[in-house]
Every structure is written in C-alpha cells, then in structure tokens.
C-alpha cells in the first residue's frame, strides 16, 4: 500500500490510466487487424504489388462470390422482416396479462442461452432429408417424397433464416417488449376515450413510440445478419455460401488470404453503408436513447 498511500492523481490522469489498457488492446487486436485486412485486400498475391485491384477483380468475377452476395442479401432481408414481425407479435402477446405469462416468457428466452453452433447443429435434425420436418409434413399428408432442404437454392436459404430466427427472435422480442412497457398506459386510455379502435391504437400510439426500439433491433440484427457465419457454415456449409463463409473458404480451400481479405472488406463496406444509410433515414438521436 505504501506507494499508493499518498497517491492523489488528477481526475484526467486517472481516466487516462484506466482507459489506456482497454483502448490499446482494442486498437491493437481489433482495429489494426481490420486495417491489415484492408491492406491485404489491395495487395497482389503474385507480385506483392500495392495497391492493386487484382483481388477485387478476382472476387467480383467469381461465381461463388455473386452467389454469396445474393444469399447474404436474401437472408438479411427475409430474416430481418420475419424476426421483426414475430418479435413484435410475441412482444405484444407477452405485454398483455395472462395466466402462465412468466413461464412463457422464460421459455421463449431459452434460445438466447443456446450457443449458435448448437442451434445450427440441431436444425440439421429438423431439415435433414430424413429429418423431422419432412416426417411432420409427410404425416400431415402434405408431401409424398422427402424435400431436399439442402439443395443450395431458396429452400436452403429459408432453413438458414428459420435457424437464425429460432436463435434471435427472442432478442428482438426483449428489445421491443422493453419499448412497449415504457409506453405510458394513459396514452391508451386517452385513445380509448377518443374512440380509437385496437388497430388505431396500435398504428398511432404503439408504433410511433416503438420507433427507437425498432431502430435498435434493426441495427443490431442487421449487422449480425450481414456477418452471419457459424450458423450457415454449420447448417448448410458449401451448398449455400454467404459472404463470411465465402471469405473463410477462400482462406481454407485456396489458402488465399488476399481474396479472403477482399471478401471481408466488401462485407465491411456493405455493413457500413447499410448502417450509415439507415441512420441517415431515421436520425441518430433515436439510437442514443
């Protein structure tokens, strides 16, 4: 204790001292790797020329990349819409009082505690050719022959979307539920007095006041949907590449960090563009709350 006894650092010195380790760590092991990736993406593999667009030319001309790009966009658009729809429906259901509400809420939150890799592995039992969804559809008399969910087409993307929904709809629901519970009850009473219908209350009271929660959910989920990796890798692997798995396969299969870096950089660019565009549309102050 002796060296600390008479220690009276200024507030600023203390802040710098306390913030330095974390800042240095994140600069060193998050920001500089990203910078390194961007540099690599502009470096020619054969000639080591810098800057060069060779990797981007290769990637953009690559059939698998266009597929990965399209797949990522479809998964993001479809996934976000469905997660928001079901998340909102669940939040509205759970905002009303009913018997066993606490139990249902606890049950709904279970997927949040299940590792992504596990949820992906489990969905293979659901969507396998001799899996349980096919068996269910067969017993309902809806299909005669098993559906091949892993053929790499839209059906396969749908399995990724459903698996992702399983894992993250509870998160969307929690965010929206917090928003719903923050809306003062008097507003609904006032609306009722003015003769508003259920739908009008939802449309003119709930939705506008839920805007910042929806924005938060969309941004968090949007970023993760673009970056989605472990889930499609485990569930569908090479049959339906997304941008992240494309970048991984470039590194793994062709041992080419340069094109892998170019893929990752393009993905980063997409995320940045989407977030900035979205914030431009809804305004930044929504997010800070």
């Amino acid at each position, binding site marked *: 204790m002796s060296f600390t006894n008479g220690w*009276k650092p200024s507030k600023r010195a203390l802040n710098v001292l306390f*913030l330095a380790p974390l800042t240095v760590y994140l600069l060193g092991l998050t920001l500089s790797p990203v910078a390194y990736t961007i540099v690599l993406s502009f470096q020619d593999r054969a000639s080591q020329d810098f800057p060069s667009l060779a990797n981007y030319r290769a990637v953009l001309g690559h059939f698998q990349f266009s597929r990965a790009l399209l797949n990522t966009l479809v998964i993001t658009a479809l996934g976000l819409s469905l997660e928001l729809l079901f998340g909102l429906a669940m939040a509205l259901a759970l905002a009303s009082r009913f018997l066993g509400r606490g139990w249902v809420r606890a049950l*709904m939150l279970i997927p949040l505690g*299940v590792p*992504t890799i596990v949820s992906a592995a489990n969905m293979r039992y*659901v969507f396998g050719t001799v899996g349980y969804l096919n068996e269910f559809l067969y017993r309902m008399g809806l299909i005669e022959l098993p559906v091949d969910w892993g053929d790499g087409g839209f059906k396969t993307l749908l399995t990724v979307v459903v698996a992702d929904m399983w894992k993250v709809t509870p998160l969307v629901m929690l965010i929206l539920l917090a928003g719903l519970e923050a809306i003062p009850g008097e507003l609904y009473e006032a609306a009722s007095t003015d003769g508003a219908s259920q739908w009008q209350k939802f449309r003119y009271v709930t939705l506008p006041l839920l805007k910042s929660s929806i924005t938060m959910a969309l941004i968090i989920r949007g970023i993760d949907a673009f970056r989605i990796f472990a889930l499609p890798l485990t569930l569908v692997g090479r049959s339906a590449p997304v*941008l992240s798995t494309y970048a991984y396969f470039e590194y793994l299969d062709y041992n080419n960090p340069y094109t892998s870096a170019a893929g990752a*950089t393009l993905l980063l660019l997409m995320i940045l563009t989407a977030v900035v565009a979205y914030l431009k549309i809804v305004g930044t102050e929504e997010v800070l709350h």
Partner: protein
Amino acid sequence: MKGVVGALVIAMAVFTVAPLYLMVKVSVSDPADIMTQHPPFLIHRPTLRHWNRVLASGEFWPPLKKSLIVATFTALGALLLAVPAAYAISRLQRRWKYALLLSLFFTRMFPEVGVALPIAMTFIRWGLFDTYPGLVLAHLVYVLPIAAWILTGAFETIPRELEEAAAVDGCTTWGTLTRVVLPLALPGLSVAALFSWLLSWEEFTFALYLTLTERTLPLQVYYYVYQGNWFLTATYTTLVTVPVLLLTYGLQRYLKAGYLAGAIK
C-alpha cells in the same frame, strides 16, 4: 383476438422447444429409430450408448479442458482490462460516455472473418497460433466490448456521493476504489465475469481460425457435424449447452435489452 394470441404463443413455444427436444432425443436414441425413412417423434428405444461412447472415448476430456481453461482466463482477462476502463467511462461526462460506449459498439460492425484472418496470420508469426494464450487473447477481442458495456452499467449505479464521502473521511483514491467502489460493484463484476466466461465457452469463429490440433468443445461439435455423425453431435451439443443454459437461467434477471445489445449473437 384471444384465440389468435393463444395459438401464436403455443406455436412459438413448440417452435422454441422442438430443436432442443430433438437434440436430447437423438443423443439417447437407438440409431435404428433415427436413421430411417420415417423416424418416430417419441423416444422408442432409449439407450445411453452414445453418452458412454463420448465420455469413455478420451475425445471429450481434452476439448473440455481447453474450453474450461480458455473461458476462465478470458473471464479474468476481461475483468482485468475492462473494470478500470468501465469505471472511468461511468464517471465521464455524458457526451464522452456515449461516444465511448458507441465506439465499443461499433467494434461489432467488423465482420469476424475480417478480424480473425489477420489475427491468425499474426499469431502464426508470434508463435501464438494453436495455443491456449493465443485463443484467450482472441476471445478477449470479442468479449471485452461487451464486458466493458455491462460493467459501465454496474458502476453507474454506485452513487458518486459515496466516493466523495470516503474522500472526506480521508480515504485515498486507491482506498476509495478498493474499499468502497469495488465491493459495491461486486454483483456487476460477477455478472460480467460469468457473461465473459459464457461467451468464450461458446465462441466458434476465432477458435476455428486459430486451432489446428487441440479443439475446443464448439469445434468438436463442428467436427462431428462434418463427419455426419448425428449421435455424437447430439451428445456433444447437449454437453456444451447444459452449463450455458444453467448459467443463463441464473443470469436471466440481468438480461436487460441494453446488455443484450452486445452480448447475444
């Protein structure tokens, strides 16, 4: 309206539970009941054969050991680095606080494959590739922003007046921190440590990029998925999931939207 809500709740509940039921079911089922044209939905011939095989194979304990050690050191490292920073952030002016919290959040915009690739390449040169310390360092990249976020929330609940009172009573800066602030923040510290532990326990991407020989448990799951062995996959996924579910259940009341913003993938 009531009926629609009821039906929706029931449908979502079934959708939530079914995959987990299937996981446990497959892990205790006779292969003849699973690998068939029309598998039954109930467990017809229960067997512990897959569990015995996993626990007796010697393939289970090394990944368990690695996952346990890496997760524990990641949690300790996260506290070591994030506690001071989070304290400082919680005592900053509003606009600085938001700027820092937001920039922590922005680290999440980077695609993991774009961060893991250069880290793997650098760690190969530094001799950290395929080692425990290397994986801990990489997991901290992913865990630190979330730990700092949770901890900032914890420190914000401790009134500044307490620190001022301690200073008036003659406590040094160091004494105020160790004898007043940290003890009061202990619940928050535990939540942050447990969360960090969990995130490392289930982390997949960095482990995938940084591992050649000694797999962690999530990598072991991936390995068996790719072998196409449903039964061993189911057994391993159950083993990975159980501690996570127990811990998250315990942490449930701390699962606030704000934390979750960063904590759940």
